[in-house]
Each structure stands twice: as structure tokens, then as C-alpha cells.
């Protein structure tokens, strides 16, 4: 019941995001959308995922969007009605295909679903002896799936390096006088 209430709030937020032209409000609404998603994860007992969603989705990405707004415009450009119709059609078809795809998925919490019969019994039964941490999520993330987490860390590292390379310093443009005061990043 509470999940459907939260999903209803999320849908209302999306309608707001679509209709509002003021991008500052849109950014705030996307932060709200992420926070509602985090609440749904809490209801589904995925507290680690909820934590990440609240911190990254609702927190940092909202601030980064605000930073982008400070560099660009605050108002959304209006698109022509023909493009709006075709875009809406594409979004609708994609949504229907995605819902069709979920029909084959096992129902939520089904103990017979493949994900609960592959490596999960081993993690739950053996991790107290092998790793000994109370939080199995951390055991899986940092020990059993250490390679994946190393890869994720490299992804974040690469993202920051990319941002530095593209908009970080601008050494070539430093000769222009208006870039003299550019903050050193």
C-alpha cells in the first residue's frame, strides 16, 4: 500500500517535471523524485541502495544540476507541438516495451526465482564464516565482488578525470583575458 502511495507521488512529480518550464523547480522536483525512490527502496528492505539513492540522486546530482543551471539558462526552451507529439509517442512505446519486459520477471520476493538460488545461498550461509561481517551487503560488495567495486571506483575516477580534462583548467584558453580569474580547479 505504502509503495503505491510513493509510486503515486513519483508519478505526480514526473507530471510536474514535464509541465514546469522553470528549470530550477524541475531540478528540485528531480531531487524529490530520487528521494521518493529511496523511500521505496527502504520499504523493499534495500537500505544500502536507498542510502546511495538518497545521497547521490537526491543530494549531489541535484547540486550538480544547479551548478549546470548557473552556467546555462534557467528557462526551458519550448519545443514545437509536432516534436512534442513524436517524443511523447517514443516515450510511450518505450514505456510499454519496458512494462512488457517486466512481465517475464519473477514476482517480488519469490524464493524460487533464479537470483535466490544461484550464489545467494552461499553468500548468506558462508559469509559469517568466510568474511565475518554482520552486513552481508558489504561482504558481497567489497570481498566477493571486489573486482566489480574496483571497476566502479575506476569509473568514478575516470568521470572526475574527464571533467577536469574538459572544463577543469582550460590551459589553452588561459591566454584570453577573461579567463585570467578562472578559479583553479
Amino acid at each position: 500500500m505504502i509503495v503505491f502511495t510513493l509510486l503515486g507521488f513519483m508519478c505526480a512529480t514526473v507530471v510536474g517535471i514535464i509541465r514546469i518550464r522553470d528549470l530550477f523547480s524541475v531540478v528540485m522536483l528531480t531531487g524529490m523524485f530520487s528521494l521518493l525512490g529511496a523511500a521505496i527502496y527502504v520499504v523493499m528492505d534495500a537500505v544500502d541502495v536507498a542510502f546511495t539513492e538518497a545521497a547521490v540522486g537526491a543530494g549531489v546530482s541535484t547540486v550538480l544540476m544547479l551548478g549546470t543551471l548557473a552556467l546555462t539558462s534557467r528557462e526551458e526552451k519550448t519545443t514545437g507541438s509536432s516534436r512534442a507529439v513524436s517524443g511523447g509517442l517514443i516515450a510511450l512505446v518505450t514505456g510499454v516495451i519496458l512494462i512488457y519486459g517486466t512481465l517475464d520477471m519473477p514476482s517480488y520476493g519469490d524464493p524460487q526465482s533464479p537470483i535466490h538460488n544461484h550464489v545467494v545461498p552461499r553468500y548468506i550461509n558462508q559469509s559469517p564464516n568466510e568474511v565475518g561481517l554482520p552486513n552481508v551487503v558489504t561482504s558481497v560488495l567489497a570481498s566477493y565482488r571486489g573486482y566489480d567495486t574496483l571497476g566502479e571506483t575506476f569509473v568514478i575516477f575516470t568521470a572526475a578525470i574527464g571533467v577536469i580534462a574538459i572544463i577543469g583548467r582550460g590551459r589553452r584558453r588561459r591566454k584570453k583575458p577573461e579567463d585570467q580569474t578562472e578559479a583553479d580547479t
Partner: protein
Amino acid sequence: MNLGELRFMRRKVILRVVSKFIIPFILLFGLYVQWHGDFGPGGGFQAGVIFASAIILYALIFGVEQTRKAIPAWVTRSGLSVGVLLYAGVGVATLLLGENFLNYNALANDPVNGQHLGILLVELGVGITVCCAMVTIFIAFAGRGHR
């Protein structure tokens, strides 16, 4: 939000006082999430983001120049690589100790103690990299507005 509003935010007394008051608590909570990730929800990734959000809040209220005085560019830049190197270094250390890459059993005499140490170090590496990445990206964006 444009540049004028950003400057305006810096003059707000209530924002300055309240953020100065809560930033230490955010940092403390980030450290808690970092070191308590083995026992409860959280871990290096979440802790890095929370720690960075405190620094970003400081930068929003007090300005990028002021933040760069507290945390110079070389700190966040080297932190980016230190975190990744710490993570990969733990893997190389386990290789040198005769185990597979990132098999923490070799790090201590007891395999469970080795796992604890390995996870602690690896999560610390993730936290440092994530925190520095978030701060770097934010300041790269916000710093451009200060022309």
C-alpha cells in the same frame, strides 16, 4: 539560479550560521557511515558522497575561492588517485602475499581478520576517491561561473 543569486546566498546570515553549525555534524556522519559500513547500511561510496556534500555546502555558502583555501586543488586531485591506488594496492599486496588478486585472506594470519582489514582498506579507498571526485566535479562546474 544564476551568479547573482550565488553571491546573494553568501550574504545570508542565517544560511552562514546554520551551515557552519551543521557542517561538522555532516562530516562526522560521513565518517560514521565510512567506518560503520561493515555493521550497518553504508560504506565507502555513501560516506564519500556525504563527506563531499558537506564540502559542497561550504562551497555554496562561502564561495569556491574560500573552499579552495581550505582544500587546495592538489589535495582533491591527489586524493582521486590515492583512493584508487589504495584499492588496487590492496589487490597487489594480496598478490605479493601469494593469494589471488583482492583475496584478503592473505592480509592477516587469520583469514577472517584478513577479510576485515582488506574490506576496511578497500572501503577507505572508495570513500576517498568518491569524495574527491564529487568535490572536483562540483568545483569544476561552480568555478567556471566566477569569471
